[in-house]
């Protein structure tokens, strides 16, 4: 099942997996909330690559419509998330997620 000459769906899935794992790694490693947001964007984009590759393999446009909707949701998520981050910074004067320990017993 070749997408391009000599490039199969597996190649795109491996790329997507690598980017997704890097996103997970970043969310777990970094303590800065803005960096964690960026890594979430990275994970969403990894999924988008897989969806577009499958859409290309099956010749079905629906996969690309899903990618379009994922972009819509990601844009809305970033707008609200960054507003929450601004509010957080105004109250705590940091974006370090380790500072958010009010719920800890």
């Amino acid at each position, binding site marked *: 099942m070749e997408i*391009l000459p000599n490039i199969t769906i597996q190649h795109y899935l*491996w790329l997507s997996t690598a980017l997704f794992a890097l996103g997970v790694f970043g969310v777990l490693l970094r303590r800065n909330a803005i*960096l964690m947001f960026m890594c979430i964007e990275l994970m969403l984009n990894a999924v988008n690559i897989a969806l577009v590759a499958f859409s*290309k393999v099956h010749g079905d*446009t629906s996969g*690309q419509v899903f990618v379009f*909707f994922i972009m819509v949701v990601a844009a809305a998520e970033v707008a609200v998330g960054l507003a929450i981050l601004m509010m957080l910074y105004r109250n705590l004067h940091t974006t370090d997620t380790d500072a958010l320990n009010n719920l800890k017993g």
Partner: protein
Amino acid sequence: MSLTEIAFYFLSFLAIFSALAVILSKNPVYSVLYLIVTFFSIAGHYFLMNAQFLAAVHIIVYAGAIMVLFLYVIMMLNLNEEQEEKTKNWVKIAAVVSACSIMLIMVSLISKSTYNMGKAPMAGDAGLVQNLGKVLYKDYLLPFELASVLFLAAMVGAVYLSKKETSKS
């Protein structure tokens, strides 16, 4: 090696290395810039897969809107100086182990799958604006309209959340 193969591998390595640079760079502004490089290489992948509309929308939405939003927030919070994060050592090890195990699970699943056995139709023009628009406005009309409602809600929420609180009494 054909030209498309070279383009695929170049874009893949560019995407992965700049993603790594996003995670590992100390300065948030550099992270944003590397993330823009990642997004451009992903847009290049969309171009390779003949999804021109998605490539254009991806550049406009991500590199044009979302990344500018990130840069504005970093500027307003004045986070552009390098600051050492106090990540504990066991957190670092746990992050590496869990990311590697997710990678391992997915790679083994992909390499063991029998998905690529059949032969699928190859429609080269599935990603053109005309075909995508037809599907979007015929089959996905209701989700499309709901997305606009979602945007309205997100806009109201963002404005409300980032508004400065006036007197509380």
